[in-house]
Structure formats: C-alpha cells, structure tokens
C-alpha cells in the first residue's frame, strides 16, 4: 500500500466511484432513444482525474475498453482544458483524432470544485446513423469522408445549455435525427448527473484527498495486474489469421499477433499486420487497443477494476498506416471487425499456454448489419443497425455455446415483435444453423440465421463483416465451424453476397444473414456417445457423421 493510504478508505472510495459510473450508465441507457444504446448497450461511461487518467469506467461492451480512454484525452488536448468550463460538454467522433468509428460519438465534460478542476466525466454512445453514403453509416466506402459527419472537438453544451445551432447542423446531416437528438439529451444528462456526484464526493472528502485516493486506486490496480501478469507463463506466442479482403480487392488481409510475456510485463506486437486497405476494414489504434485489452482482461482475475492502473500495464506495438493503426483518410467503419480478429488471433497464439481457459475460435465477427429507406407507413426515412450472434468456440472440456455474442462484444438482439412494430421489416427467420459448429470431442457452438424481409418497400442494405472465406478454426484436432454466408433470396436463387456489400433490396426481397459456427476441440472420433445422440435428438447435428465443412475451412 502507498504510505498514508488507508486500505479501508480505498475500498470505500472505489465503491463510491463505481456507484457514480453505474448511475451514469443507468441514466443514459434508460432514457436513450436508439435501440443500440437502450437495448444493445453499445455505450460506455468513464471518469478521469485531472491528468486525464481514467479512474472509473462502466461499460457492457469490451469494444469500449479502448475508446473513451484514448479519445477523451485527445479531445481535451486539442480543445484545450482551459477552454472548457464546469457545465460544458464537448463532442467528438473523428476516428483519426483518437476515436473509433464515426457512429460512436463521445461527450466530455470537465468537473470543477471552487474554480479548481477535479477531473472529467465522459460518455460515448453508438448513434444509429451519422450520415454518409449508406443508412446506418456502416457501408462499403473508400474514405472516412463518405462514412458520415465528422465531428472534431465541438462544444455542444455551454454552461449546461445545449447549443441549438450545433444540434441543427448535426440533425441536417443524419438519417435518424429524432432518435439521435434524444440520445444526445440522454448523453448530456448522464454527464451532468455524474458531475454532480463527483462534486459531492470531492466536497465530502476534500479535493486533495479525493485526488490522492484516485491515484492510490490506480496504483492498487496496477499492483494487482502486475502480480497476475508475473504469474503468466513467460514466452513469445505467435499466430496469424486472414480477413477475407478489404471489401474492394480479393487479397486476404493478414492479421499477425505476437504476444511477449516476460520480465517487462506483457506486450502485444501487431507490427506484422498488413498495411491499411482501400475499404472500411481498417481499425484505428484505439480500436485495435480494445481488442488486446480485452484479451489481457480475460486472462486476469475478473474482479480487477478497469482503470488507468490496468491500461498502463497493457502495451501494444503497431505501425502507423497499417490495418490496426489506420491513418487519415482511411475508411474505418469495419474497424471493429479488425479489432475482433486481433483478439481472436491473440487467443489463438496463447491457446497452448492456457489450454483449459481459451476456447477454439468463436464466430469471430461483429457482423454489422444496417439498412434503411423510406417507411411507407409514415413517409419518414428510417435507419436500422444491429449485430448478430454466432457460435462460441469449444473448450477442452465442454461444447461451445450456440447463438451467443463472443469476445469483444455482448450486444442483445432486439425482440422481433419490437422491431416489426417500429420498422417496416419482417424477420422471417431467427434460428440456429444445424451442423454449423465445428466437430470435435467437444463441438463448436452453432451459428445463427436471421432473415430480413422487406415486404413493402425498397431498402438499402449493408453488411460490413467477414469470415466468408476463412472459417473459425478448431483446436487440438477439432474441426472449423461453418463460415459466414450473406444470401439474397435464400430460398430462391440464393445469390451469395461478399462479406462487405451495400445493395438495393427491392420490395418483397429477403436477405439472409448467416453467422459462423465456432471451432471444435479435439478429435471428433472421441466425442462422447451420449453427447452425439443428444445433438441428433435436438437437431443441432443432422447426421452422425457430420463434422463441419471442408476441413481446411477454405471455401473455394
């Protein structure tokens, strides 16, 4: 323990800070408008000390591990701490200024007590549409300019009052202004609430004392992380995987992860990854960082707090201008897909060192699905976005979960009844895909099929995803899972789409999104007879000798 730090008071302060970010999250989620935030929980809240070190964070998506942590300090540096006053709020979404993709808009507010800065509160939320070439702003583009409205640090709130000019400017550039404006109100209210709570805590404890305990909390966290890292097996661990393509060409994109564990702690070396590509499959450094931070967090005790004391122990090396550290003006809408693959590849590298903990490859894709058009019921433009579950990888002692989100995200599905009430689309099918899990002594989880039926209007439909060419791999003799398929008119001609596509769907058309199954574990011949029978009985496997698709996972 640091000198003069009371370990008991530290625990009490830790709880008080957590209570503030929890409260902030609840307020944002419950009063937000867009499905992404309210149902799918695609947002996060954080608190920073005066040095812009994160002291508390609340999130339900690991993708948010790296977002605010990087964007908030850059925002304050660029806008100028001295230009921000208590009660203000500054917006930013520019991926090339330390943020992630344009849909994730962050709002940062300084907190002062008696004219003295005590820290910052911030939140970031995924807005369903930020303009650009396609509804949902997650389409097939070549430059960030085509992906939507770019917000450098811009003051939205001054002295507690929202600037209507900024709101009108944003509203005119996006497809779901009503939803987004409701979300902005919720974001502003969340910061105001957290600001009040932090002020109250500072007044109760004393500003200096609060600062001291914030630092102590970071040191305490660092100490725990360091102790756990020291117990990880030292060595260099390496794996390579490939993305299908950059969305325009046909060349696979290399994701190369080298993990070094040793006296210097843990480092993720991504310098072997390919250069940034033409399409949207580029991650900013913040996005790639989220992927490796997730991997490290998953290897540690689950109750280690997430704050700067954790982040400073998680080191990444990458090359500017690469697919994991993209430079202006790269398109980045698919950057989370890259981040996902970085995490999967890091796990593949570490699999042998943690045989009972790390599963075989999971579905491995976010699976960004977005669409929109004019709602014939109202004549208004609508935009919809969601991501879809798939198979989890099998473990050395159990099957992979069927139909679940994995690794870097954990977003819920909107209920079919709610989607159909609010949007002019019908979900024709939402089911597991039999035989999609990789065979093995333990079977990979099944992928999911979700069919969108545009009954009565023309829609623009985009998918920004991957894994149609390279299937999730099995481990220790386990088979790969079935790769992804994106199919127009699935029960008719069945035209397969590429994994990044923006298409026009005529009225009456159906698009079927089919996510990958997880990789299997161990020799399929060793599968327990009871388990194999149960698979047949439940229809998860259709014939006794089904072990997955072609064994090398490559679809010709």
């Amino acid at each position: 323990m640091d000198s003069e730090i009371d370990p008991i008071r530290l625990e009490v302060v830790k709880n008080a800070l957590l209570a503030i970010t929890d409260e902030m999250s609840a307020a944002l989620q419950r009063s937000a408008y867009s499905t992404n935030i309210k149902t799918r929980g695609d947002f996060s809240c954080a608190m920073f000390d005066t040095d812009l070190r994160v002291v508390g964070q609340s999130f339900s998506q690991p993708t948010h591990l790296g977002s605010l942590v990087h964007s908030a300090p850059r925002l304050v540096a660029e806008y100028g701490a001295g230009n921000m006053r208590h009660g203000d709020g500054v917006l930013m979404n520019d991926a090339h200024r330390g943020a992630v993709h344009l849909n994730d808009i962050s709002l940062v507010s300084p907190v002062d007590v008696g004219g003295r800065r005590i820290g910052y509160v911030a939140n970031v939320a995924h807005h369903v549409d930020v303009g650009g070439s396609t509804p949902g702003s997650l389409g097939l583009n070549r430059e960030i300019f085509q992906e939507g409205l770019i917000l450098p640090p811009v003051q939205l709130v001054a002295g507690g009052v929202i600037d209507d000019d900024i709101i009108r400017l944003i509203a005119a550039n996006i497809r779901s202004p009503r939803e987004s404006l409701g979300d902005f109100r919720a974001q502003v209210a969340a910061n105001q609430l957290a600001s009040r709570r932090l002020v109250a805590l500072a007044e109760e404890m004393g500003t200096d004392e609060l600062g001291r305990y914030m630092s102590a909390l970071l040191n305490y966290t660092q100490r725990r992380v360091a102790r756990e890292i020291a117990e990880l097996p030292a060595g260099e661990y390496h794996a390579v995987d490939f993305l299908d393509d950059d969305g325009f060409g046909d060349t696979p994109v290399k994701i190369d992860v080298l993990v070094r564990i040793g006296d210097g702690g843990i480092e993720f070396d991504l310098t072997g990854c390919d250069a940034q590509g033409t399409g949207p499959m580029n991650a900013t450094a913040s996005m790639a960082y989220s992927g490796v931070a997730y991997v490290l967090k998953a290897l540690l005790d689950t109750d280690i707090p997430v704050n700067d004391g954790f982040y400073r122990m998680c080191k990444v090396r990458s090359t500017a201008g690469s697919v994991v550290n993209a430079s202006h003006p790269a398109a980045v809408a698919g950057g989370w897909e890259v981040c996902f693959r970085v995490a999967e590849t890091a796990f593949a590298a570490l699999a042998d060192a943690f045989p009972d903990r790390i599963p075989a490859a999971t579905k491995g894709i976010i699976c960004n699905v977005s669409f929109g058009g004019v709602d014939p019921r109202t004549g208004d433009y609508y935009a919809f976005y969601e991501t879809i579950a798939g198979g989890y990888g099998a473990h050395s002692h159990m099957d992979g979960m069927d139909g679940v989100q994995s690794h870097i995200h954990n977003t819920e599905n909107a209920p079919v009844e709610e989607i159909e009430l609010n949007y002019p689309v019908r979900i024709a099918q939402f089911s597991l895909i039999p035989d999609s899990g990789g065979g093995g002594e333990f079977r990979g989880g099944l992928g999911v099929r979700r069919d969108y039926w545009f009954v009565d209007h023309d829609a623009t439909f985009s998918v920004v995803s991957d894994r149609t060419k390279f299937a999730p791999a099995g481990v220790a003799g386990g088979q790969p899972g079935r790769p992804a398929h994106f199919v127009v008119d699935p029960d008719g001609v069945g035209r397969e789409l590429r994994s990044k596509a923006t298409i026009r769907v005529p009225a009456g058309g159906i698009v079927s999104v089919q996510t990958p199954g997880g990789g299997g574990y161990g020799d399929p011949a060793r599968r327990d007879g009871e388990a194999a029978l149960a698979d047949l009985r439940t229809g998860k496997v259709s014939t006794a000798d089904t072990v997955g698709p072609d064994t090398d996972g490559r679809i010709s």
Partner: protein
Amino acid sequence: MSTYQLGIDIGGTFTDAVFTDDGGRRWVFKVPTTPADPGVGFVDAVDAAREVAPLTTDNLVHLVHATTVATNAIIEGKTARVGLVVTEGFRDLLEIGRQIRPDLFDLLRQKPKPLVPRDLVIEVRERLGPTGEVLTPVDTRSVARAADLLREAKVSGVVVCLLHSYVEPRHERAVGSQLRELLPGLEVSLSSEVWPEFREYFRASTCIVNMAIQPVVRAYLESVQARLRERALSSDFYVMQSSGGGMTAEAAKNLPVQLIESGPAAGLIATSELARRMDWPRVVSLDIGGTTAKVGLVLDGRPTLSYEYEVGAMAAPGGGRSKASGYPIRTPVLDLVEIGAGGGSMAWIDSGGALRVGPASAGADPGPACYARGGTVPTVTDANLVLGRIDPQSFLGGAMKLDLDAAHLAIEQHCAAPLGLSVVEAAAGIIDVANASMARALRLITVQRGHDPRDFVLVAYGGAGPLHANALAADLGFSRVVIPPDPGVLSAAGLLLADVTHIESNTHLVPCDTVTHPDLVERLRTLADRVLRRLADQGKSAEQVALSYSLDMRFHGQSYELNIAVPNLDDPHAVAAARDAFISAHEQAYGHAARDEEIELVNWKVSGVAPGFRHAQAATIDGQMVDGPVAPVRSREVSDRHGTAVISTFDRLSLTPSVVVWGPAVISEMGATSFVHDGYHASQDSRGGNLYIEKD
C-alpha cells in the same frame, strides 16, 4: 371464542412464524427449516402454535405462507418436461434468447440451459404481423404434427407462444384448442393468457417458468394441505406472491410463477404497512440477513414493483445480478436491490492488498468464527462482536453463546496481521467495507432514481439490519432510523398484513395523443374484468376489490417505460393527466424530458386489491411493552478506532417510551440486535413500539 392468525415464512436456516389472536396478543416461533421437505418445518410451526392455543378450522381464521419452493425448483433443476410451440422460423427462441453471455470477461461462463430442450420446441405454420394482421393463416396440419410429436415426447404440459399474440390472440387460441382436442388431459398454456405483453422471448420465458415449476409447487402445496387436514384444520390458506399480495393456495397451483420471490416480499409489505400507519411518505427498507442485504423503496405507503426479474440469476461481482444468467419473468416482483453483504459475509485480502468483504458467506454452517462450529474465517458478525456491537451473552435471546476469542483470532490471522493493523482497526475496517457495499445498494435505490435520502426514513430489519442501520443512515443522510418490533421475524409478520391481489397487463402500443377517454376506459375495464374474475375465483366479490389502473409510458423511440398511475379513471382528462405525470416522472428519474416529443402508451395494467385481514393488523406490527425500571442488562468496556468506551446492553422489551438510550449502546432482543453509535440516541415510540435512532 378467540380467533387466530398465523404467518409462516420459510427461510434458509429458520422457519419463522408469527401467531396472533384477536385480543392483540402475539407469539413468535422459530423452528429449523427442513430443506429436504420444507413442509415439515411448516407443520412444526403450526404445531408450535397449536401448543399455545387449540386450533380448529373455525378459530384459525387466517393462515398465510411464504415459500421458496418455486425458486428452489429452478435452482435445483426440479422442473417439469414441458413442450413449447412457436411460430415457424423461431424454433430457437429460447436457445438464442438474448444472445448475450452473463459475464464479459470470463471465457468459461456459460449462458443458462433453456428450460425446454430444443427437441421439445415445435414450430407451427402461421404468422401474424405487428398489428395482428394475418400474414399466414394457421396450418392445422402443422398443429396436428406438433400434437403427434408432443404425445410421443410425453411432456407434462405445453406452452404456446406465437409472434404478436399479445395484440391478437386468435392464432394462439386456435392452436391451443386444436392441441387440447388432440391431446386430452394435457395442460396447455397460452402466452396471450398468462402475460400478454410484447417481446416474445420474455413472454415465452414467463410462461415456461410458470409451467416448469407447476408440478413441484402443486405437490408441495398439496402436501401442506394434507398435513393441515390431518390436524383437522382447513386446507384453505394464502401464499405470498412476489408482488407482495396474497393469493389462495388453489390459485397459486395454476400461477406458481407468482411465488418466485415470496419471502422477501413480505418484509417489504410490513414496511409499507408501517409507513402508511405512521404517515411516512418516503421510506427505504433495509433487510440484512446472513448472506445478502436487500433494500426496497416505499413511496406513499406503496412498495415499487419491477417487471425485469430473472429466476435463478447469479450474483454479479459488483452487486445485483448478472444479466442473462437466469430465466426472465415479466410478472410483477417487488423491487428489491440485493447486494452480497450480510452477517455471514467473509472478509479477505485480495492480491492488491485491499480488504474485501463477501460475496462468499460462511452461511449458517459452519457460520461465523464466533459460532464456534468450526468456522475460522472472519465474518461481518465476528467484526461486530469484536467491536462490542453484539453482546456475546444475549445473542438469540441468550440461547446461543458467542465465542469472542474465536472472532478475535480469526480477524487477527486473516486481516489484522496481513494489513499491519490492530484487531480493532481491522474489525472496524471490515464493517466499513461491508457498509460501503450496502451503501451502494442504498444509493442505487435512492439517488440513482432521483430520490434524496434526507427525505427518507430507513426501516431496518432482518437479523443484521438493525446493527448496520445507524452507520448507513449517517453515511447517506437518512433523516431517521426505525427498528420495528421483532425485526428478526418482520417478514413473517408481514404475511399477516398482505392483501389479496391480482395484476393483469397487456401491451397495446399507441401514441398517447390518439387515445380518447372512452378508449382508455374500455381497454382498462376489460383488463379489470379479468382481474375481478381471478379474484372471484379466490372468494373475493367485486365489492371487496379496489382496482387501480396504470400505464407504462415512454417517449416514442425509447425502450424502457415508466409506470404511471391513472388515479381517476372517470376523469375525462385522465389521458392528459397521465401525459403530464409521465413528463414529471421522466424528469425526476433522468433529469431531462422533451415536452413536445410524442409519447407512447405501451403496457396497460390493472391491479386489484381485496383486503386480507385488516382488523388483525394492529396486533401484528405493534410490539409489547413491559413497564418497569430500565437498567442495562450489563455493560462492558470495548475499544474501537477512536478509543475505549463503555457499551451498555439493554433488553428491548424493557424499554418504555419515556426512556432514552444514549449511544454507544446495544439493544438486544430475540433474533436481532440494534446498535446505537456514539452521538446518537434511541427511544421507543408509544404508538407502534418502534425503536427510533436519531442524532443527538
């Protein structure tokens, strides 16, 4: 002839009973819980009452029971083999569920296995659109095929949950009646009848939980009824619902999903009754037991309800429950925030050198170190003992002697030595850390929902609630602490205060501005008729039932609703009044509201309340007071961080309204101990026998 009422609450360790007569006398019993057959504990409690008074069918006029049988059936996997019939294309409604995993970073954590395995989920061909329009009519051949499969699978019952049935139940009814015809004797349950709200997974899950626990709950209730009949007592009794109302055992056999949180509900009902009688508009309840602390909110004498409960959910590391770790139900459950900190919670040092408390608990066996039953790990109870906040001589009314040395040793070895603190400092630290967790739960239910604790009274009960209430109230700024009489058995007392209730809900999503007053009246009256029918089945006539109406509302585009009361259905401006009330409630809860945004009505709700046994209430909450001189039972010198003080122990029963007990002091009674800190004082009120703790 005297008449009697009996409330029986089955807890983890003890089965508590409160027994009253019409003359206002009250007896309290604690008998061991019998987990293998909880009905044994139940009749032991009945027999304890029979030793006090010769009970007959005629003189035992009211028997109310809280049971954990329904929840345990899920946790222990004693569920029935149930079939599920769904719309074509949605066979994996349960398998996929919410498509999320319960823990973000634990690579090994699994989502719960569906209560209906995939081979018992059968699709039928039919499809409705979101306004109930028919896209594909019911294909009777597909229903016949489903019936064949269900017959072959030998299911005990079948749930039918088709898309959009909450708005248009015709398809479900057609499928249901064909199945009943083809499978005579099989239980068929329609989601549009059990809980007609939208969001298909949650509606299906509610119905499935209900049907899956039905055989176990039914068998239990029948075994209890048989035992009552053996004792020549009536087998008509009430069970406590999760919503805080009673329902007859017969009705509960068909709606066992309503019994999920039966026990904890009763304590909150007792708190609500207290709040009404004492005219306290804003109350927070604090119930601390061996492993958890539960806090609830009572506004204007009414507890708040939640519709987002998950049965069998696992505790989350930071408090509360992990989302998607259990089976969701949408039926009403009294809103309690739970945190893994109680008297048995164990103290430990983590790898970063911080002192932690819970969520692991020593439970009742071996229990805290001071129980001297083999426990060596320090607990919150041990820390309280070392600090002099529990009197080792008067625990459980003196029936159990506590081992102070064992508590001392456990704290020394596991906390004080590794942290380089004295035992007293470490003990004080354990209490501070436990209080910090509990304070987080209290903040969740107050400030997080826009309520200022300074406007609230804190009512503390459970074995350890009265021990921590003073410190927590001081931390959060509660105006006053109240310890009701017999706080250790308040839940059992609450059973006798329960009204008989039934709630119905239906989703009808419509813009607020398009709803006319006649629409409002018609739709809510239709629901009210359903409520009245359910209560009529339980012997309550329409004249006895007070109906209340409410609407779940949101801004168009939001996904969480706020429940807004419709206080006067006959008011021609009721819709506009609800609209205004919603805007205020939104501002209160979230700090903002857009006045000109479109507002939607989502779920329409009607609650019916018929009085249980109102005349019995004076007796059940009021304590007994014995006149006489008041002197401490004993005093002892105790050290804490601030020095050494003399702490006196008083017997609660000896306190009269004129007596003020100055802190630090311990006030002991059967089943609970209150602690009054330095700078505070306690006094007993003359009306209800409540103990108040206030600042000097």
